[in-house]
């Protein structure tokens, strides 16, 4: 909560310090390196075999030397001192080129070191299995992918450094400039995803806008620019729009508004391609249809045995089902009846594709919940456009019914549904899964003291932070009120704890604006995981208990279920 006493925030686990993000990247890099070490040692062994065959060949000799040298230096830097030691022994055992006694290598010495090196490398590699998710997460947390680089240009150095920290907390990579010339130079080197540009500079009261205008005039595509300014006049706003400015924010700046705009403009989470399931008993027909849709950039799944459809839908989130009307075992009409009786599939658009001339049948198909009826043979462009428009509408409707309007996250019932799907998948594939439930600390107090609009901004900030910082396939939902959940696929309890703790630290560092003055918030979180919890009820129950425990222990902390 507001400037809460730091002594309450202690947790006896890693992740207390912002430096830990770097430490975590380092350990991820190390694990990555260890995974490749056997292969590297293998290469050295091969070079050695080659060198034994031709001890007079300088190229092979130098290559062997360099490989051993590199391993010695790199392994030591990653803290693998034993491996580095053997590699260095090999390097030191090698005489300088050209060897005095040409063609004679210190065979025994090198071979014994190589053998030990190979053994140690094998042991190291097997000890560091199971760390892939950690690495991915760490990349999501520490390395910001391309397309998230933001250039911040403002001649007020203090303002710039403050804003920079805030934007970085949301996961943007920020380069800041107090001089327009420096910004222009940086632009030559690397293109940012967005530019946040001040309007007024010492040189002129509209220098920022003029500068962007001039740059855009020479460019093919205008820079994605958001202007910030103390100027509120219409003239300034108008010239910003004319300079292709996509947003205009006045100072004192409300960071959450800026982040909202950046999130929108840089499309942090891209729309997934359309996923179409094609049900047709004829393989040739379904393959033909699939080909057309794939060419239009859609993903397709063919089902040639209608009774398999439910199994397929359990695995693949379908945007639309394209169905043949006449099939053995069960007709398309029957199949759509079955689907419409299952809650999860009530909203999936169904389009029939068949040689059906009888209008009565068509109408009956539509009344059963089919969304469209296409007669074969259908023109490829017609198929693509009919499918696309249905999918877009379907997605829009789904979004309205499944997401929370304030944060854009999925809502309670959708969370439950996704959790069921992911849990079933994890059990089938025998992969771990973690479920985190979190709750903003003293949220009622925020609303009471700073007002509901400020409370809403806190909720949005948390959602934006999570959207930025988590992997795209982690599922984030607003459970209700100030409660959120995250479903971490293929992630064990320990990894989920570290990630949530990073988010906890970042979130508690975000300053929220209010008319009563700026303030900070924290959250408490409970985590439960598969395989420890076997079913959805236990998973939710255990996460809830852990969250309660976190609150009881003093809030602003992450607790893992002991189940």
């Amino acid at each position: 909560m507001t400037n809460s006493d730091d002594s309450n925030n202690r947790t006896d686990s890693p992740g207390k310090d912002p430096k830990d993000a770097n430490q975590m990247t380092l350990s991820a890099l190390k694990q990555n390196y260890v995974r490749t070490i056997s292969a590297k040692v293998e290469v050295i062994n091969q070079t050695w075999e080659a060198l034994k065959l031709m001890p007079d060949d300088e190229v092979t000799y130098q290559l062997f030397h360099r490989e051993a040298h590199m391993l010695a230096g790199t392994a030591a830097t990653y803290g693998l001192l034993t491996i580095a030691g053997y590699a260095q022994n090999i390097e030191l055992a090698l005489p300088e080129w050209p060897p005095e006694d040409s063609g004679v290598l210190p065979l025994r010495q090198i071979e014994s070191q190589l053998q030990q090196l190979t053994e140690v490398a094998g042991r190291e590699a097997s000890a560091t299995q199971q760390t892939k998710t950690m690495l991915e997460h760490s990349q999501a947390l520490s390395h910001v992918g391309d397309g998230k680089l933001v250039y911040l240009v403002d001649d007020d150095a203090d303002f710039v450094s403050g804003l920079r920290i805030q934007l970085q907390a949301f996961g943007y990579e920020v380069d800041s400039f107090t001089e327009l010339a420096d910004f222009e130079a940086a632009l030559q080197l690397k293109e940012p995803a967005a530019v946040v540009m001040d309007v007024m500079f010492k040189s002129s009261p509209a220098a920022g806008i003029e500068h962007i205008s001039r740059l855009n005039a020479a460019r093919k595509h205008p820079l994605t620019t958001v202007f910030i300014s103390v100027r509120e006049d219409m003239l300034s706003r108008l010239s910003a729009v004319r300079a292709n400015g996509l947003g205009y924010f006045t100072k004192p700046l409300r960071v959450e508004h800026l982040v909202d705009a950046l999130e929108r403009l840089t499309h942090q989470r891209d729309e997934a391609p359309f996923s179409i399931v094609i049900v047709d008993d004829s393989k040739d027909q379904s393959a033909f249809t699939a080909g057309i849709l794939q060419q239009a950039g859609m993903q397709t799944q063919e089902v040639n045995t209608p009774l398999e459809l439910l199994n397929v839908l359990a695995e693949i989130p379908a945007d639309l089902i394209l169905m043949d009307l006449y099939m053995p075992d069960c007709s398309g009409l029957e199949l759509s009846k079955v689907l419409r009786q299952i809650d999860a599939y009530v909203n999936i658009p169904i389009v029939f594709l068949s040689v059906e001339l009888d209008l009565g049948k068509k109408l009956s198909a539509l009344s059963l919940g089919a969304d469209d009826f296409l007669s074969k043979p259908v023109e490829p462009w017609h198929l693509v456009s009919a499918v696309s428009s249905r999918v877009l509408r379907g997605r829009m409707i789904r979004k309205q019914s499944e997401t929370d309007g304030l944060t854009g996250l999925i809502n309670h019932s959708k969370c439950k549904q996704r959790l069921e799907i992911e849990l079933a998948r994890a059990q089938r594939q025998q992969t771990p899964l973690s479920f985190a439930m979190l709750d903003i600390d003293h949220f009622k107090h925020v609303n009471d003291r700073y007002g509901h609009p400020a409370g809403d901004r806190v909720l949005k900030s948390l959602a934006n932070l999570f959207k930025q910082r988590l992997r795209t396939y982690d599922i984030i939902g607003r459970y209700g009120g100030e409660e959120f959940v995250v479903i971490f696929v293929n992630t064990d309890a320990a990894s989920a704890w570290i990630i949530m703790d990073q988010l906890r630290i970042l979130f508690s560092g975000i300053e929220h604006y209010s008319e009563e003055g700026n303030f900070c918030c924290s959250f408490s979180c409970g985590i439960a995981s598969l395989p420890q919890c076997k079913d959805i009820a236990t998973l939710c129950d255990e996460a809830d208990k852990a969250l309660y425990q976190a609150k009881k222990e003093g809030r602003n902390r992450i607790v893992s279920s002991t189940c």
Partner: protein
Amino acid sequence: MNTLKRILYAEDDPDIQQVTELALEAVGGFTLKTCSTGLEAVAEIEAFAPQLLLFDVMMPDMDGPSALKRIREIAAYRSIPAVFMTAKVQQEEIRQYLQMGAADVIVKPFDPMTLASQIQEIWERCHS
């Protein structure tokens, strides 16, 4: 004294590149231009305009010392501080690098969490 920001870095081992980038960019806050060979570093220097060079000694194509020699021939970089990194620990070798004008030699393994402050110290020493 100017603040140190731009470092031209040459190293052929991608595993060390990654950890150095972490050490100097994420931890140290410097702007790094990473090259994989000495030749590439020589080619990049004018465009990047670094304030300090950090070169691995042993690299294919052109090693660190040769690259430094070439760079010193450019008038603007005659006195740019240069730091070598090497896994070798023989004192004789270190002396040799210092004699050819290196500001310091960092011996691998280095600690990624303190490398930036080590570089900063060298920078300050060069300007005191």
